[in-house]
């Protein structure tokens, strides 16, 4: 049976995630559909979802408009694996505040039991690329692309820390929910997308 992986196509770098996920599916030799999703109907057929990078305030407000936020919530509650990248991780978090502005009033999915700091490394001039590691999921080296990236300042007991950079938490996993502060879809390395596709495939069986 083929798996359906959706990329939330409200705003942000949707196409780059479609490309990376398609490559991951092919490299794993799996049978899978990778599709952009926007409506609750499209989301209801998914086995896994990626919430891509973009502006979290924009994605949040707009996914409220057509009730896709509610549908995503239902699916995650039923155990659907989800990968949140940068803005996507912000969307998945319970609380988010901006490094400068403080607490933000924005729609969140409130799953990841983490304290999240937006724009944690500074503005665009401070955006950076550096090698990081995610040993606990067998990815020893990964080139992290951090663009106005958030970080996690605190995690609850059910949350596994996958990676840190300069003492800041930059990747987490809680059950079938993964959040990263960096953008794996902007590199050639598909190892994180492969890890996620595998997770989707095994949780479906």
């Amino acid at each position: 049976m083929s798996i359906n992986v959706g990329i939330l196509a409200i705003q942000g770098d949707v196409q780059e995630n479609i490309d990376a996920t398609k490559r991951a599916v092919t490299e794993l030799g799996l049978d899978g559909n990778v599709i952009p999703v926007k409506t609750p109907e499209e989301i209801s057929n998914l086995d896994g979802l990626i919430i891509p990078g973009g502006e979290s305030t924009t994605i949040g407000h707009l996914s409220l408009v057509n009730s896709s936020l509610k549908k995503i919530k239902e699916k995650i509650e039923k155990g659907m694996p989800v990968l949140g990248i940068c803005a996507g991780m912000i969307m998945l978090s319970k609380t988010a505040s901006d490094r400068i502005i403080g607490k933000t009033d924005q729609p969140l999915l409130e799953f990841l039991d983490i304290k999240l700091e937006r724009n944690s490394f500074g503005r665009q001039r401070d955006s950076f690329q550096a090698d990081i590691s995610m040993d606990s999921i067998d990815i020893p080296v990964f080139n992290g692309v951090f663009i106005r990236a958030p970080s996690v300042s605190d995690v609850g007991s059910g949350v596994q820390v996958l990676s840190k950079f300069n003492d800041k938490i930059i990747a987490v996993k809680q059950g079938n929910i993964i959040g990263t502060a960096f953008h794996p879809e902007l590199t050639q390395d598909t190892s994180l997308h492969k890890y996620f596709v595998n997770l989707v495939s095994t949780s479906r069986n």
Partner: protein
Amino acid sequence: MLPLSGERSDAKGIVCDKSSSGDVLHGTSTLKRGFAHMLKNGVVMDVTNVEQAQIAEEAGAVSVMVLDKLPSDVRKAGGVARTASIRIIEEIMSSVTIPVMAKCRIGHVYEARVLEETNVDMIDESEVLTPADETHHIWKWDFTTPFVNGARSLAEALRRIEEGAAMIRTKGEPGTGNVAEAVTHIKKVNDELRAIKAIYDSGDNQDLVRMAREFKVSYDIVEETAKLGRLPVVNFAAGGIATPADAAYLMSLGCDGIFVGSGIFNATDAKERARSIVLATTFWNEPEKVKEAQKMIDERQSMLGLDVKTLELRMQERGSSA
């Protein structure tokens, strides 16, 4: 994975910090172009003060562009239009969470330096302001901050990318509330992309070399672009967008997102208009939703607008020959 054609490894804007965990790079093409990719399917709104910036953020804008005057007011005021007050840019940066952009004059290296030091997230080297150099644009590889530039044709777009622009937008005709020119520019770029893609697919390298000479850019960037069949950077629509239907139309022509200048804050229903243009940009391929967005605004409150044929000042021509 990002297309990185035209990238320069010797770019002075790339800064390398050594840390205990290895090299930390800033200002690479991946980071600059990647930033622009995060704005896709979004709306960037021109603002002149904190209040407007907050309205834009609440409406769902992906970024705000700070100017001293909205483009239509620049037209009315005449004189020399320069970069915005740094104090206002800083006030806006400390009151919204979305990225903040600002404009500098074409070729004005030091307005750009000042904006980089202010820490804006992107610099627009813009024809809305009075050009400071008629023959040169800024060599943008020298900056860590990414740039966006306007273009009316594929040749102009590729010249700007070769100078280091991380994002392209149509020029349109700013401050007119008239989309006609933006439509012309995106269609021209699309036609020219189709033409070089066809040449690439036919395997006629001699003809690609001819195109590179005509465009006044290197063969490599023409070949890469022809192979991709699209610009190697994100391409937004700008210049004259005033309504949700305008935004949806330009998205349907293949633009990656929208810049709105005077169209929002020169209308008398700014809040509704900002929100409705965001909705129409997101759901452009669902006409029912675009209709709902269009219904949120009142045409009697749109900016009056200008017929492009009668204009004395055509901003789009600034910097085109270089």
